[in-house]
């Protein structure tokens, strides 16, 4: 069969798109947005139920909505989008044809099928087992089957990505090393492979258990292996959204990493240490020793946290260097003041960076500290944390990328550009507030995944303090603001993709690349990367921001130890 080697060059960005890869990216992105829509509608039910004054849904529906919300957001929306990012990072950034497009389509339809089957099982009503589906609580067999099919599809897509890297190497479509963004995507894909392997190890026996072929699933074994899948998939997200930060910094500012060595080594640290994080979820569980917990929960010695702290400096640092080159050199922060705050790609990326670091990162380390986990485990502090990492961090970064992709990939003009300017602020700040209020309520002991903290009709109701109720109400209110922000995103993207004005380029055509050759590439201007300079720091403003971050981190860390020291002694 002849290999399709048709490419087009985007006139505004100079990016090169392989015809089959382009179509696959679009379809994966569309499937992602559809999942986000479903997850977002479900979020309304969840938010309005936990806001005790509204208490919208009955318990069965609440738990059902919460299960489906978690799966559609955390699995289907994010992974479909990540597959699109992987194809972009391999095919477009390396100017290479996508390996085996037919297999990539197979992977896509397998993922769609898996997502549909899994949603079917939850909407049946007998699989409200939450995202974590802890055995021995059992779901309908189709629940596990759907997840397994989806995971197999995602795994196949990862291998299409790896295959494309091999083709690019063989056909010499790039010189020297792959771009940093592709490097980050490779990190994400490698983590994805062992994550999905862990998922298979636990979900396949659980599926057999659900149909009666396996007699017993040990709860501790399930939880340990499940989190090797569940937590690691969040690490795929981290690697993917950090790559997107670098990508947006490069697109918007022409920013280059201060040093490739540092940024790439930080990605390597993710590969080496992120997988240990299964332990974060087992810190108050019996049967595991403290040595095991301490080593694993800290990613050896917080080496993956170190990696994120490095990216947290190098991404804004790269932007600062690029801005200073353009002449924004006054004081510490002129480069930041003069940043394009009205460009939704930039504002989304920057809010994502700050939210992920200050809210998600710091709170994540608190929960992942063996003893501090005692005062946090399974409280609503946990959803507070991951709405900062996965929603403000990953989702908002992906939203920022979407605004870039609509004209470039879908060749449509952005509809409602005025609304798009505001969307990252409404969504990002709304969700950041949700996170803060949930963390506040969690500190006061409010449990997660709980239908009624008023304990109406209970023999021995617990009375939470008024502050906890207030926090939950504010979480509900800001949750609605975040949902509105999400709705704005959906309106803009769906509107633009289907009804946006088509971008017509005179003389548009796809060009065939000769075998063994890169497609006709736009000229690359070769200039030096950031070089080590003597004397003054190249990014002083970023360094000051990093020190502010560190101060907040250190203070909050010891405040939590102080709080822990006041609870009942345990040993």
């Amino acid at each position: 069969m002849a290999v399709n080697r048709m490419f087009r060059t985007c006139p505004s960005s100079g990016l090169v798109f392989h015809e089959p890869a382009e179509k696959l990216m679009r379809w994966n992105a569309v499937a992602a947005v559809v999942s986000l829509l479903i997850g977002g509608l479900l979020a309304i039910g969840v938010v309005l139920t936990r806001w005790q004054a509204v208490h919208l849904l009955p318990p069965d529906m609440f738990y059902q909505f919460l299960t489906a919300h978690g799966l559609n957001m955390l699995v289907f929306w994010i992974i479909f989008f990540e597959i699109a990012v992987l194809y972009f990072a391999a095919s477009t950034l390396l100017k290479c044809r996508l390996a085996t497009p037919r297999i990539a389509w197979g992977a896509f339809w397998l993922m769609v099928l898996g997502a549909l089957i899994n949603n079917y099982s939850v909407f049946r009503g007998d699989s409200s087992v939450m995202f974590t589906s802890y055995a021995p609580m059992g779901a309908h067999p189709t629940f596990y089957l759907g997840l397994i099919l989806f995971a197999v599809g995602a795994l196949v897509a990862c291998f299409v990505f790896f295959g494309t890297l091999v083709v690019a190497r063989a056909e010499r479509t790039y010189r020297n090393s792959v771009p940093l963004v592709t490097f980050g995507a490779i990190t994400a894909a490698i983590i994805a492979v062992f994550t999905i392997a862990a998922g298979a190890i636990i979900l396949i026996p659980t599926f057999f258990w659900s149909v009666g072929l396996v007699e017993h699933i040990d709860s501790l074994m399930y939880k340990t292996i499940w989190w090797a899948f569940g937590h690691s998939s969040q690490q795929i997200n981290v690697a993917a959204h950090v790559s997107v930060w670098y990508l947006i910094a490069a697109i918007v500012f022409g920013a280059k990493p201060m040093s490739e060595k540092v940024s790439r080594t930080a990605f390597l640290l993710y590969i080496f240490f992120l997988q240990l994080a299964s332990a974060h979820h087992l810190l108050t569980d019996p049967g595991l020793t403290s040595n095991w917990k301490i080593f694993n929960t800290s990613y050896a010695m917080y080496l993956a946290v170190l990696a994120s702290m490095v990216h947290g400096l190098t991404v804004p640092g790269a932007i600062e260097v690029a801005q200073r080159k353009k002449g924004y050199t006054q004081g510490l922060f002129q480069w930041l003041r003069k940043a394009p705050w009205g460009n939704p790609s930039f504002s989304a990326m920057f809010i994502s960076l700050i939210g992920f670091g200050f809210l998600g990162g710091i709170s994540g380390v608190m929960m992942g500290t063996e003893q501090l986990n005692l005062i946090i485990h399974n409280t609503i502090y946990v959803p507070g944390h991951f709405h900062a990492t996965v929603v403000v961090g990953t989702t908002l970064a992906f939203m920022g990328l979407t605004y870039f992709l609509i004209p470039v990939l879908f060749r449509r003009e952005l509809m409602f550009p005025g609304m798009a300017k505001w969307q990252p602020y409404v969504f990002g700040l709304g969700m950041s507030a949700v996170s803060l209020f949930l963390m506040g309520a969690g500190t006061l002991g409010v449990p997660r995944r709980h239908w009624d903290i008023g304990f109406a009709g209970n023999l021995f109701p617990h009375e939470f303090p008024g502050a906890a109720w207030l926090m939950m109400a504010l979480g509900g209110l800001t949750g609605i603001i975040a949902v509105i922000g999400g709705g704005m995103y959906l309106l803009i993207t769906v509107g633009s993709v289907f009804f946006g004005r088509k971008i017509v380029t005179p003389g548009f055509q796809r060009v065939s690349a000769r075998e063994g050759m890169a497609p006709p590439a736009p000229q690359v201007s070769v200039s030096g990367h950031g070089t080590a300079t003597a004397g003054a720091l190249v990014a002083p403003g970023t360094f000051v921001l990093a020190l502010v971050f560190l101060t907040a981190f250190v203070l909050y860390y010891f405040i939590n130890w102080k709080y822990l020291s006041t609870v009942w002694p345990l040993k």
Partner: protein
Amino acid sequence: MTISYTSERVWWKEPLERTELIWIVIALIWCLIMFFMMPYWHIYGQQNLANEAYRAKPADFMQKTEDMIAKYKVREEGGEQKIPVVRPPAGADVFLVARLWSWYPMLELEAGKSYRIHLMSMDWLHGFSLQPENINIQVHPGYEHVVTVTPTNPGTYSIICNEYCGINHHTMASRLYVK
């Protein structure tokens, strides 16, 4: 596009920028401090989980719980439900059953005294959440987890379940008295 890697050097031979170097050193020191806080607290801190846990059968655990109730029961609460309240002596082994959807039995402890509380679930996963102290411990079926606690202040505390355990999860709440 500036996205491509344009240097002729291999990436690991690229120079290191000074801002980054200083930050990496600071961040690494902080990571090590956080790492050593955990073993430090095991030695000098008061709030640690022991590594004491046993595999156990639900029926055996239930038997031990009933034996304890027979010995230390002081009264019943909860009207129709007649939930036993036990008052074990200081230092005693105390058994607390988590099941769909209740905690069994109710405990009455003395402030300043230590107790070895054995936690186990009879069925699914549950979450022991002591409020308003906010001490949270995962409870598994088949694993008997022994935690030595020392209540500090007298009062009426609540034990709620904070691991989702099905439709009546939110009704799983009990009391713990400290005299």
